[in-house]
């Protein structure tokens, strides 16, 4: 296993982040580093703030304290151009969240055309390529309502990739899928990671995390309880809470 320091420069740096909804503290002093080309998994019980953390990273939710930088830019700097941030950070959600009134191809083409103002013909070619890559060449004209969950999720991945992001965030993207369709989405993500895309994955698929992750973070109660290479964290967890969680889910 390569040392983390042989990987690229840090793409996402989260330091001392706190986030409260009203008086409820969801994140308490969270820190993590993701380097270029790295695949990082975040595991932990439901409600521990994993989704909130991802949403903070692409600026959908403002943080209360601390700092998050993406490609060297402070996410919560009020002067930061949100557009340039979101162009660098792709996010895929558990519920796919495709645009239901657009075909698969249009879903992938929309943001590059509307947001990046790129040439339509070029975008279409790229969109076709991306949909082929996620195995959906035969579904270009289908609407989200006509696709299975796994197919929709792969369109959603292609849609994010069409913006050429520097980092991809995946929030329990297989949680709503049945075991068979789960596989097709996981394979897509695995290919992506293998190609060198920087990925942060929130997942309950422990087997998958163990296989693809370069580094795993375990969160509980808004804190990073423990982190390390998957072999260490899954094989020999140091913390009691980690052990208890892994015993329950493995």
């Amino acid at each position, binding site marked *: 296993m390569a040392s983390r320091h042989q990987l690229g420069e840090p793409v996402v740096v989260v330091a001392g982040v706190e986030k409260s909804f009203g008086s409820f503290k969801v994140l308490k002093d969270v820190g993590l580093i993701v380097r270029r080309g790295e695949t990082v998994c975040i595991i932990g019980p439901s409600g521990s703030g994993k989704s909130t953390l991802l949403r903070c990273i692409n600026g959908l939710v403002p943080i209360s304290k601390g700092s998050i930088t993406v490609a060297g830019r402070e996410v919560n700097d009020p002067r930061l151009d949100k557009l340039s941030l979101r162009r660098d*950070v792709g996010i895929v959600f558990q519920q796919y969240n495709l645009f239901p009134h657009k075909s698969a191809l249009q879903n992938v083409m929309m943001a590059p055309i509307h*947001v990046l103002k790129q040439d339509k013909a070029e975008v279409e070619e790229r969109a076709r390529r991306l949909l082929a890559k996620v195995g959906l060449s035969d579904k270009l004209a289908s*609407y989200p309502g006509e696709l299975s969950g796994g197919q929709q999720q792969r369109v959603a991945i292609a849609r994010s990739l069409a913006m050429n992001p520097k980092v991809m965030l995946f929030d329990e993207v297989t949680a709503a899928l049945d075991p068979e369709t789960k596989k097709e989405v996981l394979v897509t993500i695995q290919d992506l990671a293998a190609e060198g895309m920087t990925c942060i994955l929130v997942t309950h698929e422990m087997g998958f995390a163990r296989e693809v992750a370069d580094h795993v973070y375990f969160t509980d109660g808004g804190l990073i309880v423990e982190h390390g290479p998957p072999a260490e964290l899954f094989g020999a967890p140091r913390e009691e809470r980690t052990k208890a969680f892994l015993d329950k889910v493995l």
Partner: protein
Amino acid sequence: MDPGAPLRCVRDDVADGATARQIAMIAAFFERLNETQGLNFSVFYDAFDRSRFLTGLWTTSYICVVAILASLLLGLLGVWVAGSGSRLGRLLVRAYVQFFRNTPPLVQLSFFYFAVGGLLPTVSDGFGGQSPLVSGTGWAIIALSLFAGAFNVEIFRAGIEAVPSTTVEAAESLGYTRLQLYIHVVLPLAFRICLPALNNNLVNLVKTTTLAYAIGVPELLYAASQIWSESFNVREMMNVLLVTYVLLVAVLVFVMGRWERAMRIPGYST
């Protein structure tokens, strides 16, 4: 804004031979009906009554089309301002909606025509006289647009609120600005959700145009009443009037239905 103008094209002398013959046949039938049965549908055989009635029909259609479009624009503008995060904007839109929703449209119309219209300066009509800046038809369009627009604000708001926040979040995470988000994602979905309610409101608007009668706008009801007070055929004209409105509303419902079908999304139900 001359509602009488396009009438020229429906005058008998312009119609081609076949149509002229048909019109003549229809006229002969109704003339006989009047002589034998005493049922006086003068609009079908009397050129003067017919022209008055068609002017009314044109005026009503004109008011409907312009007021429908303006009320849709007002509805969009209203939800946009109300959702823009400006407190003043939100307050203004709320006041507008409350005012026009909670007062009778006839009173609104009179208010604009008599109170506001009376305050405006008059302009020279080019014949040495003075005419009001905004005609009765103009006021009817303004008042009815504002009236229906207030309901459209509420209808659009409900539609926009029904667009899943997760879909909005997906667009935001792709870097969409608020305007782009509205144009490409929120409004297309909200429109589909609120079409049934919008349908109702626009049908209501068509029917409400009869109120313009009260300020002397030569729309359908006004034309009909002029005809029946001179030709003494109230009962017949009432029937003609009702059928005409049924047809007018049918046209609107047909157009809205076409629109709804054109916007139907495969595999998606609202």
